[in-house]
């Protein structure tokens, strides 16, 4: 049994030794330092590692600091150190005097010998009461030599000042003395041998108040503090040796003070002002806080696997390390990223639409997840709480890829790049979100991947026109279908696009009222004869109005049999509105007329229309009988009669012939009118006449009618380039110029096109003449055609000019001519005129010689060489005399004119000689 107990004891001792090795404790202390966590061989998921150690010191000393050691760089170093205490741990002796105890709390074992004092209430818990007669405490073990630094601090509460010589502290040989009595004054007095005594003239020694007194020598000065505040300082070097402190009495003559003392501390160093204030603790005294055990935690960023251990130091100045160490490993595994979507090819999406990112992240220490789309990093919320994350992002143009990132707590970052495609990708769609009845609305979509697109507008299918990736359809908004209409595009009849909406509102044209106040049209009336204003009624009127191309229109009928000066019509919405009016109007004493104008565009800039009436006494009824060449009446012929009123061509007659081909108008027989007779299938007939007869017969389709106007009279048309040929692959300016000296041209235009009808360019003007130009690079072959027209008095006249495109060979006569032009433009022979006219003179001289000699020879039959030579000599002489024969530039040795005169003279001589010798 004894053996068993012995064995258990041995095991316990061995266990204690294995966990409490204290490296270099030399003052009898024993210590135990325990590595708490992380556990050995732990794998850290975060590089922010939490380390924890505990230390326990036995033998009296307290812990001053604890440190974390690692060998991250291969060398054991203290990486993190926690200072546990510097104030009390540096004390060489400290007496709390609580509970009638005189123990040195620092654990240094400096005893305090009590002589007669009794336990009393102290500044902290208990203190010692000194009655002033044979009572004090002594520190026999403390030893301070010569000029060494020191600090002595204690609390005292005087019952009375006493008398001179009653010292609070007095060492042997007066080496260090503290007295509350300064030669008659109740001020603290601090004496060190070798230094002038410090008399605290401002440091009144108070009675009945706990006061903290501090005396020190900092190596150069002695200082006296009261309640942490410096009361005086003197320089010097202490002398003498202190072998013991007696507090409460003079060590020599036993003169004692009366009061209580508490919290006595000795330091062999100089406490700082801050430390003194810490001790003072706002008058409450700081409780001794040193401990012989503690647990410390450090957080340290670890970048690689490492060994670690802990160390500690105690108040004796001893330090030690744990004998064992532990290993931590870091996480080197990258987070795993798995993308479920988007990937591969998806059926459909549109730019600006939502796309869903589904991604799974896998890591034990996941820290952050995000994706980069179009250069912007976006955090994936919630990736830390769930392994699978779904987030939406807005699809951007030309951007179907992204990079997804994830990192863990240790800083391991991983990324994956994904891209995806769509079978159908809608880049954009254009339409008006608000429309109106009768408006023409164009719906277009730009979609990649579709070969055909059908527009589903409010449930009805419409085919579209394809141009590249653009699909377009124009619809005329029906009437009566107001509100939101769905817009969906069906892609290849297999995929539907997203749904958008168009709100269709009502279009309205009506007589102005409180609901419709935006005026578009104002109709007033005048007497055709004198232009005086009239009131008129409207027995009936019909207005067909629309916003689009007119295939869908609304009709407004208005009747007012009361005569009014004018009628104002308003419309909504406030945009261009096309109105086709038909108005029957009359006034008292004025027969009814009809105003049947073709559609006019109206806007909120009010259009004022004046309708003319002719009084019963000023007009006559004129009937037009329209017949064909077979003298049969033609029904349905539109008759338009106009005349100049106040300088403006004004419509005064409008009507359509009946089945018998006749139509009757109320006209002024005093003025010339122009009538236009129009019917599809017949040539339009313009007739100018003064309607003095009651009946006129007009033949359509014939050419015998003398009333037809010639609308080509005075019209001048020019097309450029001139001629009918243009060079291939050359930029030409194709012009169509028209002017008129007789008619007023209402409109003219031209279209440049290829022979197959493909239009190159087209333009028109509504001015009275002018030029339309097209700049065009001719094709390699074929032709270029310009169709042009002009309109005078609603009569359309057209024409065509065709240019043949030719290609010049580098060896053709055309090339030669071009070359000549080029050289001439480069001033060949000074032909451009900077040669004082010599070139021109030379040409003239040549012509004169050839023409004159030729004509004389031909006319008079001169066949003799001598005679011809003489003739040439005379001409040359004459030309030279008038300086017509130039001397080329650079020829300086001879005058060419004189030279030629001599040459021709020699030729005469030679010719005469030859004839004479023949």
């Amino acid at each position, binding site marked *: 049994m004894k053996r068993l107990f012995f064995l258990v004891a041995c095991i316990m001792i061995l266990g204690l030794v294995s966990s409490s090795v204290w490296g270099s404790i030399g003052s009898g202390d024993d210590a135990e330092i325990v590595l708490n966590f992380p556990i050995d061989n732990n794998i850290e998921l975060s590089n922010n590692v939490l380390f924890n150690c505990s230390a326990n010191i036995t033998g009296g000393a307290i812990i001053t600091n604890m440190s974390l050691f690692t060998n991250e760089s291969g060398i054991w170093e203290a990486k993190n150190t926690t200072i546990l205490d510097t104030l009390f741990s540096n004390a060489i002796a400290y007496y709390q005097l609580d509970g009638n105890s005189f123990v040195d709390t620092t654990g240094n074992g400096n005893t305090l010998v009590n002589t007669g004092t009794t336990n009393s209430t102290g500044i902290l818990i208990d203190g010692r009461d000194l009655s002033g007669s044979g009572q004090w405490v002594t520190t026999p073990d403390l030893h301070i030599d010569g000029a060494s630094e020191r600090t002595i601090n204690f609390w005292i509460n005087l019952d009375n000042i006493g008398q001179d010589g009653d010292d609070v502290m007095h060492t042997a040989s007066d080496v260090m003395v503290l007295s509350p009595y300064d030669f008659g004054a109740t001020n603290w007095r601090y004496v060190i041998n070798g230094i002038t005594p410090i008399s605290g003239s401002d440091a009144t020694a108070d009675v009945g108040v706990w006061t903290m007194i501090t005396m020190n020598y900092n190596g150069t000065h002695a200082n006296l503090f009261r309640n942490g505040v410096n009361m005086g300082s003197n320089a010097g070097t202490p002398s003498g040796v202190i072998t013991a402190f007696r507090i409460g009495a003079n060590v020599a003559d036993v003169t004692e003070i009366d009061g209580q003392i508490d919290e006595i501390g000795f330091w062999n160093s100089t406490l700082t002002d801050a430390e003194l204030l810490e001790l003072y603790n706002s008058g409450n005294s700081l409780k001794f806080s040193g401990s012989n055990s503690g647990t410390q935690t450090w957080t340290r960023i670890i970048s690689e696997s490492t060994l670690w251990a802990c160390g500690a130091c105690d108040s004796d100045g001893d330090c030690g390390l744990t004998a064992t160490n532990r290993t931590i490993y870091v996480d080197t595994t990258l987070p795993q990223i798995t993308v479920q979507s988007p990937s591969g090819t998806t059926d459909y999406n549109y730019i600006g639409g939502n796309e869903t990112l589904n991604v799974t992240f896998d890591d034990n220490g996941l820290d952050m997840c995000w994706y980069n789309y179009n250069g912007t990093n976006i955090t994936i919320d919630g990736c830390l709480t769930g392994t699978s994350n779904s987030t939406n992002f807005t699809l951007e143009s030309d951007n179907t890829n992204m990079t997804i990132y994830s990192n863990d707590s240790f800083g391991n970052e991983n990324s994956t790049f994904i891209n995806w495609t769509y079978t159908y990708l809608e880049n954009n769609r254009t339409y008006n979100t608000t429309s109106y009845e009768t408006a023409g609305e164009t719906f277009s979509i730009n979609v990649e991947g579709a070969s055909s697109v059908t527009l589903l507008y409010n449930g009805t299918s419409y085919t579209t026109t394809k141009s590249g990736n653009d699909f377009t359809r124009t619809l005329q908004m029906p009437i009566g279908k107001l509100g939101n209409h769905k817009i969906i595009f069906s892609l290849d009849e297999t995929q539907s696009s997203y749904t958008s909406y168009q709100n269709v509102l009502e279009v309205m044209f009506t007589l102005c009222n409180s609901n419709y106040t935006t005026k578009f049209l104002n109709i007033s009336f005048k007497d055709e004869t004198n232009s005086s204003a009239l009131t008129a009624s409207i027995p009936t009127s019909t207005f067909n109005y629309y916003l689009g191309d007119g295939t869908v229109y609304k009709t407004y009928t208005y009747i007012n049999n009361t005569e009014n000066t004018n009628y104002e019509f308003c419309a909504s919405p406030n945009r261009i509105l096309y109105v086709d009016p038909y108005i029957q109007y009359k006034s008292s004493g004025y027969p009814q007329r009809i105003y049947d104008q073709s559609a006019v565009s109206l806007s909120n800039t009010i259009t004022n229309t004046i309708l003319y009436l002719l009084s019963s006494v000023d007009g006559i009824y004129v009937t037009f009988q329209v017949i064909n060449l077979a003298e049969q009446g033609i029904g349905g012929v539109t008759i338009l009669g106009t005349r100049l009123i106040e300088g403006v061509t004004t419509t005064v007659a409008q009507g359509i012939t009946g089945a018998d081909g006749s139509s009757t108008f109320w006209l002024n027989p005093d003025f010339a009118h122009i009538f236009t007779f129009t019917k599809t299938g017949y040539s339009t007939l313009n007739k100018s006449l003064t309607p003095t007869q009651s009946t006129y017969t007009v033949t359509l389709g014939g050419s015998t009618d003398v009333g037809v106007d010639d609308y080509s009279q005075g019209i001048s048309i020019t097309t450029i380039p001139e001629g009918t040929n243009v060079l291939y692959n050359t930029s030409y300016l194709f012009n169509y110029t028209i002017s008129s000296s007789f008619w007023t041209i209402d409109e003219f235009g031209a279209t440049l096109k290829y022979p197959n009808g493909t239009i190159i360019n087209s333009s028109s003007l509504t001015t009275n003449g002018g030029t339309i130009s097209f700049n065009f690079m001719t094709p390699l072959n074929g032709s270029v055609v310009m169709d042009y027209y002009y309109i005078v008095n609603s009569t359309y006249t057209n024409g065509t000019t065709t240019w043949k495109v030719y290609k010049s060979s580098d*060896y*053709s*006569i055309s*090339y*030669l001519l071009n*070359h*000549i032009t*080029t*050289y001439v*433009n*480069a001033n*060949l*022979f000074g032909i451009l005129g900077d040669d004082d006219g010599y070139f021109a003179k030379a040409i003239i001289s040549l012509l004169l010689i050839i023409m004159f000699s030729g004509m004389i020879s031909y006319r008079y039959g001169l066949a003799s060489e001598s005679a011809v030579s003489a003739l040439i000599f005379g001409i040359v002489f004459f030309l030279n005399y008038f300086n017509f024969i130039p001397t080329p530039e650079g020829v300086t040795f001879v005058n060419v004119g004189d030279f030629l005169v001599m040459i021709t003279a020699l030729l005469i001589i030679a010719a005469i000689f030859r004839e004479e010798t023949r």
Partner: protein
Amino acid sequence: MNKRGSMIFGITIGIFIYIMGVLMLPFIIDDIDTARDAFSCSDTTITDGNKINCLITDLTIPYFILFFVSLLLGFVAGSIK
């Protein structure tokens, strides 16, 4: 050979000569290009003499064609007489 046969023969010979002449054009074209390069005809700053030479060179092909056309017409006309 009667008159008709002579006419057909003359036309045939004329066409043959004309075709042979046209077939020679590519060879002449190379020489024309060489001459143009030598005279720097595309440069408008050359001397007036060179410009005249260039123009005469440009006339070569038209003259050549005119020559063979004249021959053709000459043979045709001669055969008709």
